[in-house]
């Protein structure tokens, strides 16, 4: 893509210290996000997929600098966010908002919906009085709620309605980028479909760009244009959504793809069963983080050297020693 990316993340790292011993010294580090680079282009939806502990939520928060990165750069509209002082950063944040996973804990129970939706506008000094109220009314209608709902408290709403309120609040400042952290995983299927459709409509109408974090591959396939798969703090594969589902190259992507239960009793595909669980590897381990669970043939390089994320086909990035660049289909499984 030749367009200017809206968001560019360059070698981003976020380490958490493990403290212990006398005086709670730092005795180790958890590399929650480790050397991650990607770009999000205007108007697209980039999916971040991974299992728990893969660092996808940390990445989402670090991109907005809700968590301070340990290293690397975050470019938003070409401007580096990492060095910005707090007041400058707050101004930029008007263009990048977040929708959280749990609609029950992300809304203040003591505020009316009207106040919740108006709060970002007040903080950023956008408007007050009559115009403020008009804007709040417009927002609440836009997300499919009713004006009467404005005077109620969050506990009076169902999960789906609360998520709509969360979306209205995120949209208040007319952001360009929305970071959606598992926005539908707490919802029932029929309500999830409503929220997903709302998100698709909003994206078309307002020209939004999404960074969509989820563990549900079905949802990702529906919403996203490109998908990045994370495993233990690293992106292992990044490709357009059809490629990820039809021709995945990384053994982890292939396994995850086959572990995803399709609602079709006839779709009993060959299951690639992953042994073991996501387990933090010893920081001294030089090899591929997925190597201990990898079902593909293990070569010495997997143990010795961490594979870099390489472009094997236009727009298709894979971090695996078993995948040679330029190779199409087939995948790394069985090779080597």
């Amino acid at each position: 893509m030749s367009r200017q990316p809206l968001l560019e993340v360059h070698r981003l790292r976020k380490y958490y210290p493990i403290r212990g011993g006398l005086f709670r010294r730092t005795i180790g580090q958890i590399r929650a996000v480790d050397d991650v680079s990607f770009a999000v282009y205007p108007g697209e939806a980039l999916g971040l997929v991974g299992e728990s502990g893969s660092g996808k939520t940390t990445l989402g928060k670090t991109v907005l600098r809700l968590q301070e990165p340990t290293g690397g750069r975050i470019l938003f509209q070409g401007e580096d966010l990492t060095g910005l002082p707090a007041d400058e950063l707050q101004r930029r944040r008007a263009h990048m908002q977040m929708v959280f996973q749990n609609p029950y804990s992300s809304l203040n129970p003591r505020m009316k919906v009207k106040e919740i939706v108006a709060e970002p506008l007040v903080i950023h000094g956008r408007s007050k009085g009559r115009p403020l109220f008009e804007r709040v009314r417009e927002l609440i209608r836009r997300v499919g709620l009713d004006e009467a709902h404005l005077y109620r408290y969050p506990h009076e709403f169902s999960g789906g309605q609360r998520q709509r309120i969360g979306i209205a609040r995120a949209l208040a400042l007319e952001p360009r980028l929305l970071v959606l952290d598992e926005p539908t995983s707490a919802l029932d299927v029929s309500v999830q479909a409503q929220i997903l459709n709302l998100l698709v409509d909003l994206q078309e109408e307002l020209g939004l760009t999404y960074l969509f974090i989820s563990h549900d591959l079905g949802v990702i396939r529906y919403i996203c244009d490109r998908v990045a798969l994370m495993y233990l703090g690293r992106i292992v594969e990044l490709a357009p959504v059809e490629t990820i589902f039809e021709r995945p190259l990384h053994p982890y992507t292939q396994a995850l793809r086959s572990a995803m239960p399709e609602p079709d009793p006839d779709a009993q595909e060959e299951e690639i069963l992953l042994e073991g669980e996501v387990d933090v590897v010893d920081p001294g381990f030089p090899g591929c983080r997925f190597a201990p669970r990898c079902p593909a043939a293990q070569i010495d390089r997997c143990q010795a050297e961490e594979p870099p994320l390489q472009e094997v086909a236009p727009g298709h990035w894979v971090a695996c020693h078993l995948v040679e660049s330029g190779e199409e289909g087939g995948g790394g499984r069985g090779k080597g």
Partner: protein
Amino acid sequence: MDRSAPLVAIRDLRLNFHTFEGVARTLVGVDLTLRRGDVLGLVGETGCGKTMTALSIPRLIPCPPGEIVAGQVLFDGQDVLAKSEAEMQELRARRMALIFQDPTTNLNPVFTIEEQMVDAILSKQGIRSLWSYTPVARLLPTPREQRRQARQVAVEMLRRVGIPQPERRIHSYPHEFSGGMKQRVLIAMAVAGRPDLLIADEPTTALDVSIQAQILRLFKRLVQEFHLTVLLITHNLGVVARTCNRVAVMYAGRVVEEGDVRSIFKNPQHPYTQGLLRALPTREHRKGELEGIPGSIPSPLAPPSGCRFHPRCPHALAVCPEEPPPMLPMGPNHRVACYLYADHGPAGAGEDLDDAPALLGDAS
């Protein structure tokens, strides 16, 4: 024992909950049959009553505030609701097992896996028999011997559910296990007593996809090895398609459709089942084409009259708000509670049995 008789038969079960806001009519005439060897998926959204239906079998519904106002629950031909508490204990211990959603809260954090499993296995062997009060007691295993045997069983069970190095790991505390491993421990505990019926309430919901796949595979293997009959409660239709041979779909306190897994997924009849399947993003869906079910789940405090789905139903007829529809047979192994398929329902239902499937066929 009659092997062809159903293991569990729930007939017209009605359950109310007395709350401060009024009477919540949680179950309104649930009918459910589990034949021996069935793996039945009980599907539905939050609050539809699937957990309460399942808990009625071991009679674990908290009463009060709950109150079973009508109906019958038969387990292997015996009326569960008529039994005394002691008889119930015995039945639960020997013949039923439960697995819950969150493995972390179902293991006691202050005891090792060994202590918890041995206790569970010993309790399944039942209260000390009368023999232990007679001179014969000397021939019976001593309590210490019993515990040693139970420990062996526990290690063997842990091995069978795929815990590596069970002799060593059995001394661990629950926090030393990951979520998937804890769920394996709970499954081991559940099947250790060789139950006839296993009730699994959202057993994989708290787990990651790759771990879920492992647990489901284990589950399938154990069902065959131990000849279990399983009631699997889940909201994940993908899990049902992969694991179950029969499905019952619940909506707002009733089973609205049941049948074998192929006919439910390939040929759903109830508008709610159709909506549920259409609401799932699958590989055929392009952006913006997903259909949700309009509206939201009704409150059991003020449910809609008649068929509880009618306010959200795209095919609602004039008769729907008047009276709940009866369960109608749609084939040898398929039943649905919907007026669309009643050839001569109460006044207002004009549909023919022949026309109705075609009418829905267009929509699906």
